[in-house]
């Protein structure tokens, strides 16, 4: 018998029953809920007279719409206010745990789950948000779902699913100096494309992934969806277990020992067979900057903007032309000649303490360039913010001219007041550079926290290793 992949093991341990055509009822251990994709699901429960199946599986938090300044004054946007109040009311009515806006534990749903130990190895984790793939970093099966599925999980604790195919992305060898998890995942997306992972669960492996901290692994799994894969995951090791020990929702005492013993098996067997294997040489990965309107439109910072005339595929050539037009860029232009208007350090991809430390180390003792209209740091949670302040990072950012904000999704998707104006160009540590993502007409370039910090200091994209 051939061995099992990590995904096979997670899948098999959660199948409640299976139809003849392979459609399975998959049991869900943790259901994370936020204000944007849940109100219609709760309304559906009410209309059908249904209750929540397992209250203890739910952790709710408002994050997409919350203001990142003057929170004590409440929400001024009346529509957003209704949505957040609706979440509060739904959690009260159905008896669900919620970290409300004034709770220090509030933050981006994909930051607080792991931070609390609410995400554990071996779990199935869902949330009405595509970046739920983040939680796969813990050897969990985690993916985004739509609102109808949110309602389905609330009512039944299960999802109707077909098994995905297995893909291994192995990043072999050692990454070069200054190359971060963000550069690694952008390089993976460059390699396999934004649809390369469609239909697959991706396991990220190899020495360069093993060498990452939990924060780094979360950054990589977070962007599995940008490669088309609903779920990304990393096998459990000491790094995973050390991160979780002592977290508020993690098991303790004898249960902890029992859990760890089980979690040690959450790795792909040596003889496991993957449907697809992609190998990437870590030493060849450079610092990445996206130039277009899809995450696969990404290049090393030392490169120049591509020429659509050199693309043979007419649909792709048209895509490049459209992207250059939207982004206000010329074929052949050096990436280091692109001037930046705003800098955003935050999002479920890069707003954890390690990200803020990396950015602060670039910024320390320097000033934001004169052409930068706004440089902002939005910590991923109230607890990340507090830790950063305890370490003095806020003082470093403020002294350099950055704004230091409260936690939330903020300018990653610009549902709150934090957004780009038409034509503004942003160095952003978020995950999507789609047209209008950060504000209508806004131009997004995805980079790592260190590269965003360097762009703020220099006013344009630079190789952070050359910032003197």
């Amino acid at each position, binding site marked *: 018998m051939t061995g099992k992949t990590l995904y096979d093991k997670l899948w098999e341990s959660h199948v*409640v*029953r299976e*139809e003849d*055509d392979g*459609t399975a*009822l998959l*049991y869900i251990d943790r259901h994370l809920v936020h204000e*944007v*994709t849940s*109100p*219609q699901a709760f309304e559906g429960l009410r209309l*059908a007279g249904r209750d929540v199946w397992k209250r*203890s599986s739910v952790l709710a938090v408002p994050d*997409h*719409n919350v203001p990142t300044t003057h929170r004590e004054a409440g929400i001024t946007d009346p529509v957003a206010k209704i*949505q957040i109040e609706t979440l509060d009311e739904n959690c009260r009515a159905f008896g669900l*745990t919620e970290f409300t806006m004034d709770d220090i534990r509030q933050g981006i749903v994909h930051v607080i789950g792991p931070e609390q130990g609410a995400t554990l190895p*071996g*779990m199935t984790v869902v949330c009405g*948000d*595509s970046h739920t793939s983040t939680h796969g970093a813990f050897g969990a099966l985690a*993916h*985004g*779902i*739509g*609102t*109808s*599925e949110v309602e*389905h999980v609330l*009512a*039944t604790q*299960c999802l*109707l699913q*077909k098994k995905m195919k297995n893909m291994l992305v192995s990043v072999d060898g050692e990454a070069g100096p200054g190359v971060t998890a963000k550069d690694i995942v952008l390089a993976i997306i460059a390699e396999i494309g*934004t*649809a390369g992972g*469609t239909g697959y669960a991706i396991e990220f492996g190899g020495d360069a992934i093993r060498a990452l901290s939990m924060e780094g692994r979360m950054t990589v799994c977070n962007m599995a*969806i940008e490669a*088309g894969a*609903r779920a990304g995951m990393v096998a459990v090791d000491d790094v995973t277990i050390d991160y979780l020990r002592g977290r*508020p*929702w993690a098991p303790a005492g004898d*249960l902890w020992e*029992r*859990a760890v013993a*089980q979690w040690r098996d959450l790795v792909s067997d040596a003889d496991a067979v993957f449907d697809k294997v992609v190998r990437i040489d870590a030493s060849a990965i450079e610092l990445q900057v996206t130039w277009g309107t*899809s995450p696969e439109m990404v290049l090393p910072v030392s490169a120049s903007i591509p020429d659509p005339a050199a693309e043979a595929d007419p*649909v*792709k050539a*048209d895509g490049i032309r*459209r992207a250059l037009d939207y982004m206000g860029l010329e074929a052949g232009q050096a990436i280091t000649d692109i001037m930046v208007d705003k800098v955003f350090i935050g999002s479920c991809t890069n707003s954890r303490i390690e990200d803020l430390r990396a950015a602060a180390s670039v910024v320390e003792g320097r000033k934001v360039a004169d052409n930068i209209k706004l440089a902002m740091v939005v910590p991923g949670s109230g607890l990340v913010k507090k830790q950063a302040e305890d370490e003095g990072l806020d003082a470093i950012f403020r002294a350099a001219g950055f704004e230091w904000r409260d936690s939330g999704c903020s300018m990653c*998707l610009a*549902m709150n007041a934090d957004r780009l104006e*038409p034509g503004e160009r942003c160095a952003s540590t978020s995950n*999507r550079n*789609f*047209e*209008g*993502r950060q504000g*209508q007409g806004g131009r997004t370039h995805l980079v790592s926290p260190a590269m965003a910090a360097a762009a703020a200091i220099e006013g344009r994209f630079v190789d952070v290793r050359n910032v003197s």
Partner: protein
Amino acid sequence: MQPFSKFTGLVIPLDRANVDTDAIIPKQYLKSIKRTGFGPNLFDDWRYLDPGEPGMDHGKRRINPDFVLNKPAYQGGEILLGRENFGCGSSREHAVWALTDYGIRAVIAPSFADIFYNNSFKNGLLPIALSEAEVDSLFTRANKGDGFSLEIDLEAQQVRSGDGDVYRFEIDPFRKYCLLEGLDDIALTLQHADDIRAYEARRQAEAPWLFATH
């Protein structure tokens, strides 16, 4: 959900790859707590020349005459023709609600993003994957703007043109059944409540920390 029945609809060609859910329904409209009313904001950034906000009178906005949805030849279209990786990006079901609210009943493309694909079935919207070559030929015909229509027959798993071309598509039997019958899958799942409880009992013995309360 309404049962999905056979219909013939005008085809709207949206000739770009990687159409993401941010483009289908921009974020400012996600603040709604309803499932309806998203149609006027479908493809908002492409459809209108002025910036849109919730609560605006969309009849008074400046429309982009070059965008396919605004061309007279495609008014009343019910079938959207797209390119590869349609519906990529965010999990927002609002993207599907915007399409159905506008009147779209089927989307034809060479490939779909997984979450969008799933969400479509929950709302009676049929995503149909055809080959690149088939989609190319449909674009050639739909781009003429002369009322090119297709018949969608889910029961037979066929797309048929008026002049006799037949394109067969694949679909999971269970999804097909649910769409044809218009079934509520929560009710279906709850028929297996005993299986779910049995699973929980077994799992709780193995891994009690998964059942802790906080």
